[in-house]
């Protein structure tokens, strides 16, 4: 499969600058990117019988895929960010539509967004779906974990609290106790997580 584009440099300088800024964790760059391409996706979704909320969901999902790839450093763009986002969101919306509708779905495309087929969005989306499934399983496992463990792990991993804070919050006598409790919880989480995750992947 060749991803050769007729244009010699598909990435405009601003795209490069934007990606670099996002990779360095510049929130304003992300905000700018978000604002820049929102009308396109919103227009696309609205045109294909979606609502404003649908557009927002799809767009945010697409931006998350893009953002995570950028933060990973694993993004290989062969086209403009705009085209890439369009392809991702298009694919996402198509999936939603087909799951909603019994009939075949045909999308109205804007001509200006060009060859969205060779953007690599498909593979990235497959990876993202796998990641989503993993997160779903994790969230499920956390829910099944039972109260002290769940709050402890969520506090530590999701809310970035220090062990000292958590010790105080949960009333452990010292940080070592809390740590031991955390490890026990991790063991239980591991069992839940891997049984669910492996079951599903079979």
């Amino acid at each position, binding site marked *: 499969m060749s991803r050769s584009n007729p244009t010699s440099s598909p990435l405009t300088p601003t795209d490069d600058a934007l990606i670099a800024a996002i990779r360095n964790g510049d929130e304003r760059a992300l905000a700018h990117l978000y604002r820049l391409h929102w009308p396109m996706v919103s227009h696309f979704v609205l045109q294909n019988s979606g609502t404003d909320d649908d557009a927002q969901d799809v767009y945010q999902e697409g931006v*998350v895929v893009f953002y995570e790839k950028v933060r990973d450093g694993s993004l290989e763009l062969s086209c403009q960010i705009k085209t890439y986002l369009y392809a991702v969101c298009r694919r996402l919306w198509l999936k939603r539509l087909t799951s909603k509708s019994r009939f075949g779905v045909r999308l109205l495309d804007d001509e200006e967004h060009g060859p969205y087929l060779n953007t690599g969005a498909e593979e990235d989306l497959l990876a993202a779906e796998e990641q989503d499934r993993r997160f779903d399983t994790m*969230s499920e496992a956390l829910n099944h974990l039972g109260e002290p463990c769940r709050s402890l792990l969520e506090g530590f991993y999701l809310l970035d609290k220090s062990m000292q804070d958590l010790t105080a919050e949960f009333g452990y006598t010292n940080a070592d106790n809390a*740590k031991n409790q955390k490890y*026990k919880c991790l063991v239980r989480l591991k069992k839940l997580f*891997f049984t669910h995750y492996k079951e599903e992947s079979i």
Partner: protein
Amino acid sequence: MMTEADYYALFEAYALGELAGPARANLEARLAADPALALRYADFKEMTSTLRAYSQRQKVRQQLQSLHATMLAAETPEELTSAATPTEPGKLTPSVNPMLRISRTERRLREFWNGHRATMGVAASVAVLAVFCTLLGLEWWRAAKTQPSMYGYTVLKREVERIKKSQKDLTLTLNQFGRAGSTPPVAKESSGTGFALTSEGYLVTSYHVIQGADSVLVEGHDHKRYHAEPVYSDRKHDLAILRITDKTFNGFGRLPYAIKEGQADLGERVYTLGYPREDVVYGEGALSARSGFQGDTAFYQVSIPVNPGNSGGPLLDERGNLIGVVSGRQNDAQSAAFATKSSYLVRLVDSLAAAKPAVPYLLPRYGQLAGTSRPQQLKKLQDYVFVVKVFE
């Protein structure tokens, strides 16, 4: 013996790089040697990385949500005063989005339009098509409907009994079905009015009354019936001359009216007798124009209410002179009847008399009705006015 939790403590310390040199080397050696331990470590790593990525994902989501909220807030007209522009990294892209500058109502309208554009297009074209079809259809229907009376002119032949009769004939045919013998022909019957032209048995009626006739029967006020035959028809002036063929017929006697050779004057009081129904009916009016339908100078227009069956009736003036033969009426005008001028009748009779027929034409020259009252006139007149029954 270490529990799994203990191992996790160890792993975490290792992953964070907090292990001291010897312990670290020890663990690495054990990981390399013991596949079960390596698997356990891999699981631990996957789980913690998933947890961290999950937390990362949730943060990004929240961030995007807030971005979206601020973006929407920036779109609202209250905060349109470009307060956000300084914070925006303008050095990246200077492009301004036109969609950010529209009011909320307009946005709603645009959304609606985008969502239902195709449907509305189809509906609109269907509506336009329907409207045009309806208009065309109506126009066509109206044209088709007015086609038969394109001339606005109705001849006053009476065909009242027709349906009744054909129904009766049908029943008769059905009853006789299968029996030997011929079925009588289904006759179409229509009737008009006629009046005596000469005392020798010539009659005048309208041409359209006897048009297509097989046999003509003349019935007078006293219910005497005579067979008659058409002698001459003038289609253009809607005139027909009949002759009574019965052997027993021996003349009408002296006719009470004279036939006027000249034209009658506008506004003259005129009247007619006719058989629009079974009995003789009198109609009175004035001569309203000296030309007929669409300016036809062979006809008068008279303001007498006439009905089907009046055709061929005599039109007389106050002194009892025959001035015309009732012919038809205009549909879309109030009481506008037409009558052939008597001068055309006289001319026709003259041309026929020139051919020296077996029975000569002796037109009545002097009337006897002048000066008498109208009922008296009618009493004399009605003996000379007949129903002309036509069988086709």
